[in-house]
């Protein structure tokens, strides 16, 4: 027994999870001792008396336990789960990251490696190709994969088992790799993460949907066949929900138990039903289709998955990527792959007026890179139950674009003595500039112990620290012509025009202002 194995003064969020959640368990079958009956159909959902049948499990890590009821050992009691700052973590947990070379994938690989996970990863370097195809580049230079892997080993002592695989076109290779690694968690970042890219033309739209939807569908079949006990942490997006003008709350994937539909003097409980989606690009549609595919796979095959509706990501910093220039993760600022805060900071650095689309009153959920890593880790440590599909809204706050522009301007001006101008440009997207927005994002804090660590201002500060370095500033300058959008949802081809230049924002430098 381990009475002191706690997270700070609080009990770890996953302390009471049992082997039923654990991916190291082999759910062997079902036994009904009342009728001396056995069945290999572990997960057949039966009614009535059959519910008294025992699920029989074996631990792959502790075979000496023999067969047992998986509900009767908690993570807190099991010596294979060690206490960490993020909850109990399976010792040397085998995690595969799909999309390891990307902005999030690489960062998570180093993060999990530093926690003692055995990290494997897959990528086909398509993100590098897509950015190159648009004539852009990552403004924070990144190394080739061989050098990245070498540096991870040399600097952090992390061995990453990497394989170059296209998960859509090389399904057999992916199967072989998964069979070899036998992952206990799979993080799926291996999709094209870009709304404007999917809206360029028919070729790009069909490519994004095929790549994302069919790649993920293939993965689900592979998991069914090889590692059904592994948890799938799948990246979705808050953009799946859109911004419905009804103003209804953006629940976490499914309606809460007490939600009720009233219509025509009748009412129905909506509890547990998937909420409506209102995606805002063909890319977002691909994520919605993924949601349904993953949901169905969990239902049909008792796979287990968290669908992570991530807010707009920003930032450059984690303790690992900041250790060595060779360990840095990419940062894109072009109109296709750049996210709003990252792009605003880059624009501020080179004196390019920050570009708000339309009124600039669009509100979105956001999360910093380091906080996103914390969330993903907490989800990995708390695997869903067999057959459980669940959704988390992964964000640490929500802001209007206008607020973001002013925050970047304020930090740049006050802390880095960089005066910033803000402009409004034509909005190339089909979206409401002004809309209600009430996201619900309680699960990660309430059920997984997530506490945001990095404020918006702190991360903007850290980004400015990095992006004002001369060689990076130079790389931003080289691609500044790719900042203003030319991809219109309507299909027209033209650069957006400026609607209004707002006042220059200039603060007195603070006493602790950054001096490069």
């Amino acid at each position, binding site marked *: 027994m381990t009475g002191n194995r706690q997270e700070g003064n609080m009990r770890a969020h996953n302390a009471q999870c049992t082997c039923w959640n654990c991916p190291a368990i082999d759910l062997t079958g079902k036994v009904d001792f009342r*009728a001396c009956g056995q*069945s290999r159909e572990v997960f057949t959902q039966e009614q009535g008396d059959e519910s008294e049948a025992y699920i029989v499990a074996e631990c792959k890590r502790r075979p000496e336990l023999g067969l047992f*009821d998986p509900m009767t050992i908690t993570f807190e009691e099991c010596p294979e789960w060690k206490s960490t700052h993020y909850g109990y973590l399976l010792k040397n947990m085998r995690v595969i990251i799909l999309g390891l070379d990307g902005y999030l994938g690489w960062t998570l690989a180093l993060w999990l490696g530093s926690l003692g996970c055995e990290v494997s990863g897959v990528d086909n370097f398509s993100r590098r190709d897509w950015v190159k195809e648009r004539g852009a580049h990552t403004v924070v230079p990144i190394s080739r994969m061989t050098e990245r892997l070498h540096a991870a080993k040399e600097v952090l002592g992390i061995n990453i088992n990497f394989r170059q695989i296209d998960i859509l076109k090389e399904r057999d290779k992916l199967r072989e790799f998964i069979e070899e690694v036998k992952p206990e968690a799979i993080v799926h970042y291996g999709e094209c993460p870009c709304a404007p890219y999917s809206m360029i033309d028919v070729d790009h739209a069909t490519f994004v949907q095929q790549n994302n939807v069919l790649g993920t569908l293939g993965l689900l079949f592979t998991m069914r066949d090889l590692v059904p006990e592994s948890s799938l942490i799948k990246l979705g997006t808050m953009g799946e929900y859109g911004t419905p003008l009804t103003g209804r709350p953006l629940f976490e994937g499914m309606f809460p138990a007490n939600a009720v539909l009233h219509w025509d003097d009748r009412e129905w409980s909506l509890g547990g039903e998937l909420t409506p989606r209102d995606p805002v690009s063909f890319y977002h549609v691909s994520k919605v289709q993924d949601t349904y595919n993953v949901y169905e796979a969990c239902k049909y095959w008792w796979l287990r998955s968290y669908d992570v509706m991530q807010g707009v990501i920003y930032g450059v910093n984690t303790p690992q990527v900041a250790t060595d220039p060779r360990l840095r993760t990419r940062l894109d600022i072009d109109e296709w792959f750049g996210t709003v805060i990252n792009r605003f900071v880059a624009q501020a650095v080179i004196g390019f007026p920050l570009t708000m689309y339309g009124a600039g009153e669009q509100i979105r959920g956001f999360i910093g890179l380091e906080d996103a890593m914390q969330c993903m880790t907490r989800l990995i440590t708390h695997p869903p139950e067999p057959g459980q599909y669940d959704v988390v809204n992964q964000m640490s706050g929500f802001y209007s674009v206008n607020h973001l522009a002013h925050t970047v301007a304020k930090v740049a001006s006050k802390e880095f003595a960089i005066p910033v101008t803000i402009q409004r440009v034509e909005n190339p997207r089909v979206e409401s500039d002004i809309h209600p927005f009430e996201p619900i994002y309680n699960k990660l804090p309430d059920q997984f112990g997530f506490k945001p660590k990095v404020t918006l201002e702190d991360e903007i500060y850290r980004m400015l620290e990095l992006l004002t370095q001369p060689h990076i500033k130079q790389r931003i300058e080289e691609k500044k012509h790719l900042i203003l959008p030319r991809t219109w949802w309507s299909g027209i081809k033209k650069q957006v025009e400026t609607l209004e230049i707002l006042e220059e924002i200039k603060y007195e430098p603070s006493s602790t202002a950054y001096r490069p």
Partner: protein
Amino acid sequence: MYHHPPLLLLLLRQRYSSEVFRSLEKGFGVIMASNSNRLVIIGLDGMPYHLIKDLAESGVMPNTRAIIENGVFSQMESSIPEISSVAWSSIITGTNPGQHGIFGFTDVPDGTYRLSFPNFSDIKTLPFWNHEGNGRAVIINVPFTYPARSLDGVLIAGFVALDLKRATYPSSLIPKLNEMDYQIDVDSSKAHRSLDLFLKDLDKTLQARIAAYRYLWDEENWQTFMLVFTGTDRLAHFLWDAYEDESHRYHSAFLDHLHQIDNVIGEVASRMNTGDSLLILSDHGFELSQSDIYVNFFLTQEGFLKFRDTPPKSLADIDQGAKAFALDPARIYINLEGKYPRGSVKPEDKEAIISDLETCLNSLEIDGSKVIKRICRKEELYHGPYLGHAPDLVLLGNKGFDFKSGLKATKLAGRGVFTGKHSQKDAFLLINKSSPDIIPESPSVSDIVGIMNKLRGET
């Protein structure tokens, strides 16, 4: 008289693995085969004495009747509790649960509330086929012999055995079993969906079992051949009412299954050599189930058992202050301080709690009928080095009351889908020899190994 193998082979057996030895032994088949005074055991899981008697007399089991007429046929007591894991462990080892250490299908290791499912590896005494001098054995479908261990011979484990690969020794036999579409047991979950589907699967399982027995009977050079049919128990659980009620839709299906078993008995008897012994037995009996009694619900209701969550997910939810809990079917354990994580009964208070429990349980009635026939303390039932691990109390019910100790019950009594329940006094024993002194006056399951030894010694 048992014929010992040649000295050369005994030396080789010590030196080489069983697989190598087996092939060598086959080469010496002519020398090895004693071909007489072999022992054949057929187990009919859950078949009561009175049913076999009825069906033999009514003509459904004519081959069995012929053996009864020329042999010894007796009622036999099962183990307490009267369940397959305990009873078969006693049958194959000749020891009582205090010696072999198996008290049920489930167990809770000291220091935990982990509900574990013991298996063959947990039996602390040796099965007869590992006894010195018993020769080569073929063991098919004996319950509680999973995972299979090496032996001089062949073993295909019976229920609970979820993986055929680990249920089979030697592993070279697995492709042949797959070819036969061998399955260890009928898929009991089918019975909850459709009795027709269940009966179809029951028949499929039986046919594959027969194919396996025929193959190994001819292929192996054995001295002991043991074949257990477990479908009989499943059939009785789900369709005992069909047996008792001639107008029942599945009455003839019930009889037909037993008739098929009788055909196998006849076939086996006809293939035996003069001097071979045939022992047919069951591990417990059966009777009509009238009411399920949920023991843990009763303990909770009477304040002996408390859980942290309602409904509890598992035994791990047992709370501070709980005095006792039950495991299937009706084994009651005192939640002793120092023995369990939230043990709440001090050793000096244990006797008082047991007395309270006995008083309380004795008063249990359903519709005016007394539920419990006998409350047994472990010291009355068991002896041996594992007595300390035995349940403190075991309940025996009056006719028709079937005890369950799951955690999901929300009432004291109910009726499930099962129409048959195990009975303790009504197992049977049948031997194709007419010497009555082979069988003790009141035989029980732990006498079987002694009976086998007598049969082997008989010329």
